[in-house]
């Protein structure tokens, strides 16, 4: 437990949600991208969060530190993974990336990005970011309140 533990924890949340916001922005920007370097339309990206763990963990059950309840130190981004949901099919035979043959001929595979989902994600992220910022503000005011104890003589 350090002087600024809660501030550091909230700061990790701020960074994580900032990154998630970047990913959502990328998804919305690529809502009509039908051509990617790996082939096929753009796949929606998702962010996987995990608790941040700065301590070394041992698997031995005999080490007493394993059993101690420890306060976490925030969140970290584990990875950015791709959503494998099916693509949207749009009828547009004149599109350069339209499927030429087979039962789906004439259709274009559009990215599996739903703008409405991304917008709600965006709102949730911006509220989470606000919550973390609020947390920092209140940690600050707690710190200042503690200092007031020393100042009032």
């Amino acid at each position, binding site marked *: 437990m350090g002087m600024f533990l809660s*501030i550091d924890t909230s700061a990790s949340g701020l*960074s994580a949600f900032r990154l998630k916001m970047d990913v959502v922005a990328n998804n919305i920007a690529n809502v009509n991208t039908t051509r990617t370097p790996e082939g096929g339309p753009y796949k929606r990206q998702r962010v996987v969060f995990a608790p941040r763990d700065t301590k070394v963990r041992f698997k031995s059950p005999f080490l007493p530190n394993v059993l101690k309840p420890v306060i976490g130190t925030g969140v970290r981004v584990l990875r950015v993974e791709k959503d494998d949901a099916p693509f949207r099919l749009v009828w547009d035979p004149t599109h350069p990336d339209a499927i030429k043959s087979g039962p789906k001929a004439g259709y274009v595979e559009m990215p599996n990005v739903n703008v409405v989902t991304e917008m709600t994600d965006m709102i949730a992220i911006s509220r989470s970011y606000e919550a973390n910022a609020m947390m920092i503000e209140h940690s*600050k005011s707690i710190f200042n309140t503690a200092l007031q104890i020393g*100042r009032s003589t």
Partner: protein
Amino acid sequence: MEIFKSWDVIGDAVIQRATHPRHFGIIDKPVVSDGRKNFIGEFGDILNKQISKVNEIQLTSDELTQKLAVTPNEVNIHDVMIAAEKAQLALNFTRTIRDKLITAYQTLINLR
């Protein structure tokens, strides 16, 4: 063999101080007996250490602010703000401690 006074012994830790280096037994630092090496040290040392830590926080904040000015894409704005706030809080803390020290000093000076 060292001989300690009875008031120098607390538990199994022995503290010996020389108020002046020319006095007998030139020992500047508190002596700790075996087994308890984690004696904290003089208050002044602790204070100096803390002040240098506060200085480090200020330098970190400075560095981040410069980074923000030079390469804005490489830093998060909230990191800069948090570093600045941390610096301010640490400085406030130091100021409160200094005020306390000065109050204590003045109390001692005005004993008569």
